[in-house]
């Protein structure tokens, strides 16, 4: 490869380039330097990871904040709906309304005292025991 060429006046100057061949030179590894580099890279990596983690956490926190607020808004709406439905149930259970339906629509009347039979159902346990005894007795008799 030729060197720089400049024109001065009308003559041309020529420079020779001394070729240096250092391809056979071998750079000797410096273990200290290598370790230091590794340390710097590791430290940098940890620092970067820490920063990334912090950033991730921060943005995750924001995202969760959004989600949380949405859920809270949903809960609030659900609670409101629940309250509305309770009000609706209370209105539908109004004795005045039920009485009106019973008499006006279904044609029912107020029972006279003899027609009202309070039902105190015997406990399930008593009935179950009685049925079991009866079954046992009937199976014994068939044998």
């Amino acid at each position, binding site marked *: 490869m030729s060197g720089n060429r400049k024109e001065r006046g009308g003559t041309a100057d020529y420079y020779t380039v001394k070729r240096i061949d250092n391809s056979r030179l071998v750079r000797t590894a410096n273990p200290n330097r290598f370790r230091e580099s590794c340390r710097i890279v590791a430290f940098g990596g940890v620092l970067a990871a820490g920063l990334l983690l912090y950033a991730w956490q921060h943005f995750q926190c*924001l995202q969760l904040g959004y989600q949380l*607020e949405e859920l809270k808004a949903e809960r609030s709406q659900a609670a*409101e709906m629940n309250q509305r439905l309770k009000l609706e149930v209370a209105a539908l259970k109004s004795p005045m309304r039920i009485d*009106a339906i019973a008499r006006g629509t279904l044609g*029912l009347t107020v*029972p006279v005292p003899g027609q009202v039979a309070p039902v*105190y*159902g015997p406990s399930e346990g008593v009935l179950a025991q*009685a049925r079991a005894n009866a*079954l046992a007795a009937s199976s014994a008799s068939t044998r």
Partner: protein
Amino acid sequence: MELRTPRIRLFIVAVLAVLWMGAVLARLSYLQLFRYTEYLGRAQRQQQRIIEISPKRGVLYDRNLRELAMSISVDSLFAVPSEIADPPMVARLLSGVLRTSADDIETKMRGSRSFVWLARKLPPDMVQRIESLNLRGIYFQKESRRFYPKRELAAHVLGYVDVDEKGLAGIEYEFDKQVRPRPGKLMILADARRRWYDRSEQAADAGESVALTLDEKIQYIAEKELAAAIEKTRAQAGSIVVQDPNTGELLAAANFPTFNPNAPGESPAESHMNRAIAATYEPGSTFKIVTVAAALEEGITRPEEVLDCQMGAIYINGHRIRDHKPFGLLTVSEIVAKSSDVGAIKLGLRLGAPKLYDYIRAFGFGQPTGIELPGETRGLLKRAESWTAASVGAISMGQEVGVTSVQLITAFSAIANGGVLNRPRIVRELRRGPQTIPVSGALPSRVISPKTAATLRRMFEGVILEGTGNRARLDGYTAAGKTGTAQKLDPNTGTYSRTQFIASFVGFAPVNTPAITVLVTLDSPMGGYHGGDVAAPVFKRVAEQVLAYLDVPHDVPLMPSQILTAKRNESQPRPDVSDFDPSQMETAGAPSALPVFPPEPVAQPAWNVAPTVALAEGEGVLVPRLAGLTVRSVTEQCLKLGLNPVLIGTGVALEQNPEAGASVRVGSRITVRFSRASGAGTN
């Protein structure tokens, strides 16, 4: 100097970087040190929003925790007039939805530049229609609104609130401090797109709920029967109070005229009056309970003692007082049963003013009962020193004194429960979440001995069995009571009216173990006006329904009554029972929104005559005798025979259907009725 050399260039870049960094640091320091507060405020204004949390008023429940009043969130409409480009046009558009004049809306908008309410607490359909208009500068704000889902039911007890949810009457007013919530604050952090991402909250203090002693069903029975009685007697007003005599708790307090607390402004003010505690009237003969109780307690008479009722006339201090009928010799029991004024006056005169006054006070008259309701009157009772010579006679028969319904029923409950005066109560407990806070009240006080109370119970039973209150006789229950017919004072003449009366009946049932006390008062009924004629039948209807509802066992055999035919009367207009719509709750009913049904037709024989079981007769099994057996034995026997037992009640078997010895098919149903106490519960 050659600027193009790399070192100089590097130096210049470094200097520029340092200067730039220095400038940034300087600006940062300036902002942090000198403009910090200003920018912090601006940032907070952009990012933070502080919202007032308005929790809802506590719920009002009946004794079984059925909701009687509750609040839900609704939308209110407001405008920011500075954002509205064309107020007249916006006002015109809104007036079509809000059904108010456009001029009014425009005037409101011109009242302020930043905020003005246009309409409060709108129904959802209106909100939707306004939202669809998509008007700039028109916004909605959530507000809490009180609803009374049972409409007129217990309206006078519950009261009502104003547009700001402040209690104005009834329990809403009396317990406003407890029921009203204390608002909290919510600080919201929002991003540039106004999305919320964080919050800090200053907790709101929710209002306490109130559980009343009223029972919704009993209240309805009382209101329905009162409405029917008013319809029938064309009385101006009336009240029915039902009390638990053992605790003093009011189970119902019905008044007429009534109103819809969802829209109190649409009813006349006089309909808001809780007559049970605020209306004072001369009780008439029902007040004789005090005279007779005092005389018996003091031992100055006995039920069997015979007094001369002077053929219905007595002179006191020159005034001639006449009985409603001319009575001759009557025992004290008969004086009570026949409601002889002369006899009561004689007993009062024997007692003397000081003792009579003391007993009247001891029974709670002339002083507020302390019930947890606003507007209670103490009644009218002059001090004994200022009584005239005629006062003892007049007061002995229920004149010259003014009482409220609650005072009178509380006094009668004292006789029912064995002589203890319990303070009447309307509030059972306050509730804060799952925690209950009992409401303390005055301690009960003994007024008369249990022996006197027992004697009085028998005497007042006689009123119903053979006296003026025979139309109050119950089917299946014993009852005791006292009729009252008092002349009203004519405000124009200052004398007793000859045309206007207060008809009343106070009674309890069953006699030996009273479960309820009922007082019926009708103000100025037309036509019949005697308590025994117009108020006693109402007592009967109320007491029979309430006792059945409370599952009180019958203590006397049922009369041979008849089953009502279940038949719809097509000519009768069907009541409006359309499904729920909160805005419909505001529709104020007529004087009474309660349906008044005509008397029901009667037809067939009763339960014990007409069996309620489906019976398959024919060959098969002979029904065994089950009387006296336990539930278990009855079940075992029936199943052993292949019969299907239908068991009603607990204890030992009292009745069965079909009767023992009948032949039925296998698998037939046998209805057996049990009772814990033999003899009780027979039908």
